[in-house]
């Protein structure tokens, strides 16, 4: 099995054939809103509509965005619908068994072509007038086609394809920029941290059941940033959950509450943090008993087993996050500056016996997901931040990301620049990259200038 697959298409020379006035795409210089060296963030980046619109153009239209897991597609015609930023997307397996992604909007009058969450089909047919597209995105049928002008060419009206689809160890990502740096290069050192979850089993991973979806008040970055950088909140926000899970019922021992650990931050905005204390783990017992830790040490190395394989957290910039301990993988879909939709899957190793997979699924539901005792704490914090952020004075008071400033270094054990577990280093890296992307024209702007 190869670690990576990729599919690029030349389908979209331009997004559309009409030109738009510049007033639609006025860009804001965000350099004064993010002080990633000094650790200050202006709250307007979570609330301003114009910044949110710019994110759609300069973050979501040009970043590698998680689409789906390869195990969701077994035969041609299997499909899954999702979003890239606010753009609706169909992900499907074509007749050559290649994973392809299309804008889920009919080329005729724009209706969402496929409204099912997932399924199997032979064609994607619009429910409005019946334009019908095959698995390769080609327009195959136009009712009453004879009434169209002579120069009407169905070839010109195929689905808008996501030109760059690549996968890493089962995780499929899409990018609207066909010339984007490859997914693997973009992940860089982050792959080491991801492998601690994705590469435990030589057979790879699969997702179980469907996708849990819920809506939260809160800007998408609040969640993405926390999963990149924030172990700091654990003992406070999750105090009651930690007490329930501890053997004594009074919470973890002091040495575990103050566990050492590392936090990785990437120049591409990715981040991961993890304790390195051997007893700081809260995995499900059947899963813990299933693993052969000696074999894992041989496969992944001691440092990965003692670090990122444990109770860690991580974000792949911009909005894909995961938790190795319970196999939660999730996307924070932006739904306006004030709202996000969380889509969460349960990831398990393919080789796990069914009862271990099921134990992981149940453990996942108890801890994270809409009914999870940890997830509820996090959602409450993000919604609380957002709910007050539109106050004029409130909005003008910057937020603090100064923990561990200057602590980033190469520690000789963990790849890339790492800081302490309790640190805002990956958060600063996340916003540094966000700010850079927001201030750099994207592929669609370069096309316009050419």
């Amino acid at each position, binding site marked *: 099995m190869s670690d990576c697959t990729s599919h690029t298409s030349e389908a979209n020379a331009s997004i559309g054939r009409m030109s738009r006035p510049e007033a639609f795409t006025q860009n804001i210089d965000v350099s004064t809103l993010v002080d990633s060296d000094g650790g200050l963030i202006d709250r307007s980046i979570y609330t301003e509509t114009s910044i949110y619109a710019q994110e759609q153009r300069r973050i979501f239209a040009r970043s590698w965005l998680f689409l789906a897991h390869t195990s969701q597609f077994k035969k041609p015609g299997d499909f899954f619908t999702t979003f890239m930023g606010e753009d609706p997307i169909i992900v499907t397996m074509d007749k050559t068994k290649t994973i392809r992604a299309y804008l889920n909007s009919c080329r005729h009058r724009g209706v969402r072509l496929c409204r099912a969450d997932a399924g199997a089909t032979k064609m994607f*047919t619009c429910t409005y007038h*019946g334009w019908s597209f095959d698995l390769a995105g080609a327009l195959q049928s136009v009712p009453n086609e004879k009434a169209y002008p002579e120069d009407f060419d169905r070839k010109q009206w195929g689905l808008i394809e996501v030109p760059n689809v690549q996968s890493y160890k089962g995780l499929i990502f899409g990018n609207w920029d066909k010339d984007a740096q490859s997914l693997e290069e973009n992940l860089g050192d982050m792959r080491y941290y991801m492998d601690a979850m994705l590469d435990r089993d030589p057979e790879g991973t699969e997702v179980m059941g469907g996708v849990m979806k819920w809506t939260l008040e809160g800007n998408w970055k609040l969640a993405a940033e926390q999963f990149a950088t924030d172990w700091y909140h654990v003992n406070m926000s999750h105090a009651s959950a930690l007490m329930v899970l501890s053997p004594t019922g009074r919470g973890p021992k002091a040495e575990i509450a103050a566990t050492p650990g590392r936090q990785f931050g990437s120049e591409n905005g990715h981040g991961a943090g993890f304790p390195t204390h051997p007893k700081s783990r809260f995995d499900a017992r059947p899963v813990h008993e299933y693993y052969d830790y000696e074999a894992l040490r041989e496969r992944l190395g001691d440092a990965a087993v003692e670090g990122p394989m444990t109770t860690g957290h991580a974000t792949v910039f911009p909005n894909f996050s995961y938790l190795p301990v319970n196999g939660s993988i999730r996307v924070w879909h932006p739904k306006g500056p004030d709202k996000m939709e969380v889509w969460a899957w349960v990831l398990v190793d393919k080789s796990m016996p069914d009862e271990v997979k099921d134990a992981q699924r149940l453990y996942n539901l108890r801890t994270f997901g809409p009914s999870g005792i940890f997830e509820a704490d996090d959602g409450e914090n993000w919604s609380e931040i957002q709910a007050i952020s539109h106050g004029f004075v409130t909005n003008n008071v910057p937020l603090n990301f100064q923990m561990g400033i200057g602590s980033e270094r190469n520690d000789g054990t963990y790849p890339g620049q790492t800081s302490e577990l309790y640190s805002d280093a990956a958060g600063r890296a996340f916003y540094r990259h966000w700010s850079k992307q927001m201030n750099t024209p994207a592929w669609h702007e370069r096309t316009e200038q050419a």
Partner: protein
Amino acid sequence: MINPINIGSIDDIDEGEAKVIPSDETGTGEDIAVFHAEDGNFYALNDNCTHETASLADGWIEGTEVECPIHAAKFCLKKGTALCMPATQDARTHKVEVSGNDLLLYPNVPAEPVEA
């Protein structure tokens, strides 16, 4: 008397699947789809949907009906009857016979009337 054409073994078409016999073999000027329905029997209709251009053989076979893969019109495999919009014209049926292991198609001979 029209001679049937031998279109192969009954094992060539799994239940719930269909096979297209191209027009140069059918001699009718039209492709014919031969369906292996979920009642275990074989039926044949003109392959092209009566609504727009679409291969019914690519459609979904449910019981003794086929649903067009493009606009979801349904046809009775036994009688060719158009069962729902957007199709308004029935599909043409052709007689199919099983002889031993062989499937025999009688192009342009309507399927014998059966209880729907």
